[in-house]
């Protein structure tokens, strides 16, 4: 039992933080997020060279062969600066391939992902607010030599930047992931609250794919990938939450009203303390959940629901208070606090909101 990061993990964290400060400060994040395809190839290549895109990919396939706890370290640190690179999507797509693909597919796809050459994303549910196999409504029907896809995937993260995507469908023999190249589908970016987390719909209606490109996906595997998604999202909520707390706490020490720093007023400092208590708590739960992915799968579902369930509401409040405690300046487009509030909105429903997770905790806890 040791609830601390290793020396390597601490160095990894510092490395990511340095990268964000030097190569991708918030001024750059804003520029990227405003582009029509919000993706920076040069930064992506740097991230690849630093090994961050293949953290959980086995060494045999060109990755570092590390664990989700290491993935969490990187996602958290990158999210402190709201990193707009699709690293979480890449990690989830890797998890999907490692979970569902054949050995041959792993060997042909994963090295290109670790090297950054291929940007890949994963699209699971089609219902806006339902985590369930039935919430996948796109389908695949058999044809000679392969399958024909039907329908639309309305919510796919990072689809515009992706070269390839793995999209969940109801196949002739149950759930499956359709492996697609971007030229096979129509990607339509959608305007959303958080431009650092681009979302698009992907039209797959009538697309024909080969037999080997439909990967069987069991409900357990779907649940596992959803939980990985929740871990990735929560790790980013830890980083982003810490950043807006630091920003707000710093402002409270400097902004003078009635002759005193506003941080001296308890209406301000107690909110900051509550933000800290919540952040500290979902941080602990997040690290434990990330650890269970590789080391205690039997505990994963419950651990994830604790972490994401806590973070969903807590980070939402941290976002609101982070902006609110600044006064009007926090409401301005130029000030960075608002970017974090937007991230808190984005993260809240992703891979299950708190009600979903509370229901699951109740069930798993024997009620």
């Amino acid at each position, binding site marked *: 039992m040791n609830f601390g990061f290793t020396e390597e993990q601490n160095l990894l964290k510092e490395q990511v933080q340095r990268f964000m400060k030097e190569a991708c400060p918030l001024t750059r994040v804003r520029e990227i997020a405003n582009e029509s395809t919000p993706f920076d190839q040069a930064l992506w290549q740097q991230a690849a060279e630093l090994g961050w895109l293949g953290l959980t990919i086995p060494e045999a396939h060109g990755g570092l062969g590390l664990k989700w706890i290491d993935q969490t370290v990187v996602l958290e640190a990158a999210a402190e600066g709201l990193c707009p690179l699709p690293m979480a999507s890449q990690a989830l797509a890797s998890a999907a391939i490692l979970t569902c693909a054949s050995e041959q597919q792993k060997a042909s796809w994963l090295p290109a992902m670790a090297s950054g050459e291929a940007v890949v994303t994963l699209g699971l549910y089609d219902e806006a607010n339902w985590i369930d196999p039935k919430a996948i409504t796109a389908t695949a029907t058999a044809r000679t030599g392969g399958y024909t896809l039907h329908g639309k995937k309305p919510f796919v993260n990072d689809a515009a930047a992706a070269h390839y995507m793995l999209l969940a469908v109801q196949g002739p023999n149950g759930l499956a992931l359709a492996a697609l190249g971007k030229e096979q589908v129509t990607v339509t970016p959608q305007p959303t609250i958080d431009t650092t987390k681009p979302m698009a719909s992907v039209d797959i209606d009538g697309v024909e794919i080969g037999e080997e490109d439909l990967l069987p996906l069991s409900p357990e595997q779907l649940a596992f990938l959803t939980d990985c998604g929740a871990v990735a999202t929560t790790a980013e909520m830890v980083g982003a939450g810490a950043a807006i707390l630091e920003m707000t706490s710093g402002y409270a020490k400097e902004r003078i009203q009635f002759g005193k720093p506003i941080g001296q007023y*308890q209406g301000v400092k107690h909110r*900051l303390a509550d933000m800290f208590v919540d952040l500290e708590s979902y941080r602990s739960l997040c690290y*434990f959940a990330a*650890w269970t992915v590789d*080391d205690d799968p039997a505990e994963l579902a419950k651990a994830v629901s604790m972490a994401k369930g806590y973070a969903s509401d807590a980070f939402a409040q941290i976002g609101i208070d982070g902006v609110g405690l600044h006064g009007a300046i926090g409401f301005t487009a130029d000030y960075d606090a608002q970017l974090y509030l937007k991230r808190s909105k984005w993260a809240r429903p992703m891979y299950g909101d708190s009600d979903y997770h509370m229901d699951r905790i109740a069930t798993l806890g024997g009620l």
Partner: protein
Amino acid sequence: MDFDYTPQEQSFRQEVRDFLADNLPPKEKRDKNFLGTWLEKVRAKGWVGFAWPKEFGGSDGGLIEQAILKEEMSLAKAPPLGTSMMGLAWVGPGIMEYGTEEQKKKFIPDILDSKVTWCTGYSEPNHGSDLAAIQCKAELNGDHYVVNGQKIWTTGAPWSQWIILLTRTDFNVTSKHDGITCFLVPMDAPGVEVRPIQNMAGDKHFAEIFFTDVQVPVENRLGAEGEGWKVTVSALANERSSIGEVTQLQAKLDDLKTLVKNSSRQGKPASEDPKVRRTVARFEMKISAMKYNGLRYLTKQIKGEPLTSETSVNKLHRASLEIEMDDFAIELSGQAGLQLKGGEEAVDNGTWSKGALNWPNVVIGGGTPNIQRNIIAERILGQPKD
């Protein structure tokens, strides 16, 4: 990062479970002599002061094993490991940290052997949250100090033999944190008068204490003269940490779930009510957060860093959970939830109704939530003091 218990840690857990299976009869089968025998047995096992140094009668046990021990004891609803909760949780550690060799020899064994019960004399009528402003006076007079003043809210004063007492030895100080001195005082010293105070739950657990010309030998001073605040700050961190411990809430959650399974709302099983399910899940989530927060702080301690302001995080969680869980249980139980122990329809023998009146122990005791928030904002986040 590794949450797996080592084989040694696992076998220690098994050892505790085996011990409990052999030595903890169900409540209704425990006779008058049970507690005495129990205390002797856990002492013989070396589990009292488990992580304390061997030279003072502890077992040099690891902090992880200690956490396992507490967890298993609490889940089995075992009685405490000693009769002096405060002695074990902060007075003993305080003496080991700041005491003289003589004090260690004199006081530590009696705490471990449950021979002496300690109470804590910090608060005064005019100085609660603002503890450093205390006025209870101690004056050096040759080989002893003379103490005059009043303490209040002293838990356990009616039955304790010793008190850890915070006094002021210097009134001419620029900072109120200076000039404070800590003493170890026998409660039967001439001039000590205890007046129990009844609380809203009906118990007389705390008291006010009057000190009139009480003579305290110099050798009973804990730490140097004027250094009492340092002693107190580390004792308070230990107190908050013990309040913030998750084990009792884990046991309470088990009971609450059992209650939910046996309850109905408007004629339907309560466990099917989404609001009930989510409320209980939220308790479980917060308790889990406390557990993993605690393990993170434990890892810090194992690396040799002392507990400090972070103990306020779990203290705050405990404070809100303790109130919310009891209130939820009595709300769930409707009118039966109102009945106290002995009532024909009393739920779980009135545990919840009593709990709903007893929360100030962990909410106000050890410092109020507002004070915990001040500590976090000022000492962790660096906000200006108010």
